[in-house]
């Protein structure tokens, strides 16, 4: 709980905006602190387009907040109207003209109601395929960082949030075009095979920031009042049942990746190759297979989590009366 963070000092903010330290250091911003309110609104907005038996749709919105040294503080968020029929199938969601107009109007109107925080970024969802930036996302974010810095990109995965039992969310900033980022390989990500190209090609164009969350004492009180609803719904939830489509898509994705890995191994074995190449190929196959193995472990562990909840519930509520 942190109430001081809610105090807004426009002079300090203006000084930071004038100094623009991020211009000289591409990795100036290292942390993000997001309010519980913003997190809830983002998760609910993203989750609103995930309906059982229907293809989940991407959503998009803006972040409001302020700066504090190397930290971007996100205090609130607001959804953007994405016109129905917008191409939302690929790993990007393009705001229509309507969304931009809405954003401009919103940022003007909030000043009238005394909300002093500026827009400090945008968020969008990748339902079911993890938190990273696609090619389109990278170029959108780069443009924003060029003209509207400081600007943060947040990606949330509402489908995996249900599977993992916690909000799958990531915050990113891009490097300028041509910046040679000798990044350490980003930690392993389970990315569906139909998006792996998009993920691989751009992985070095951006970096991930550490995320932490805060809430006000009022938020804490309101969330406590929700405690009963929370624990009743948690005990009465069946992720295995609710997440059936997602688990199926994960299993079919693992199967596809295994086919690919097997194909490459088979191909390498029969085509004549010299020793050096064999060694290189061996490494490649291992990395292919090891990625598939990690994806499989992830799915298996999530599914076993779901099952263990069912077994606990059966033990708690179905055990014959003593």
């Amino acid at each position, binding site marked *: 709980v942190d109430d001081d963070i809610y105090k807004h000092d426009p002079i300090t903010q203006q000084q930071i905006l004038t100094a623009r330290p991020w211009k000289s250091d591409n990795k100036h911003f290292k942390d993000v602190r997001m309010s519980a309110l913003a997190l809830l609104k983002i998760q609910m907005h993203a989750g609103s387009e995930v309906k059982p038996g229907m293809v989940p749709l991407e959503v998009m919105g803006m972040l409001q907040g302020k700066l504090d040294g190397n930290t971007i503080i996100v205090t609130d968020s607001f959804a953007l109207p994405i016109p129905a029929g917008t191409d939302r199938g690929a790993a990007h969601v393009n705001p229509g003209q309507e969304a931009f107009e809405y954003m401009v109007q919103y940022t003007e109107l909030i000043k009238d109601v005394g909300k002093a925080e500026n827009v400090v970024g945008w968020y969008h969802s990748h339902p079911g395929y993890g938190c990273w930036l696609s090619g389109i996302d990278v170029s959108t974010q780069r443009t924003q960082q060029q003209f509207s810095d400081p600007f943060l990109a947040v990606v949330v995965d509402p489908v995996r949030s249900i599977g993992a039992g916690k909000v799958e969310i990531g915050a990113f900033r891009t490097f300028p075009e041509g910046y040679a980022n000798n990044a350490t390989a980003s930690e392993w990500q389970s990315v569906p095979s139909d998006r792996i190209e998009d993920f691989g090609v751009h992985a070095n164009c951006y970096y991930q920031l550490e995320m932490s969350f805060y809430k006000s004492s009022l938020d804490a009180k309101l969330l406590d009042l929700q405690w009963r609803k929370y624990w009743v719904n948690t005990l009465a939830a069946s992720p*295995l049942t609710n997440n059936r489509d997602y*688990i199926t898509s994960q299993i079919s994705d693992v199967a596809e990746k295994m086919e690919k890995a097997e194909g490459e191994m088979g191909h390498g074995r029969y085509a004549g190759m010299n020793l050096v190449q064999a060694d290189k190929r061996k490494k490649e196959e291992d990395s292919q297979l090891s990625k598939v193995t990690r994806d499989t472990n992830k*799915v298996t562990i999530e599914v076993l989590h779901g099952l263990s909840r069912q077994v606990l519930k059966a033990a708690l509520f179905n055990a014959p009366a003593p």
Partner: protein
Amino acid sequence: ALLRMILSLCHKLPAMDSEKFNLSYQNEYHDTLLISYLGT
């Protein structure tokens, strides 16, 4: 009144005890174990 409430709570348990439920539960259980077996 409190005791009556507690008594009616006891009547709510076990939460479900029908042939159909046991079948569905076992199905889900076996599906999950099969997935973990496949994963292994």
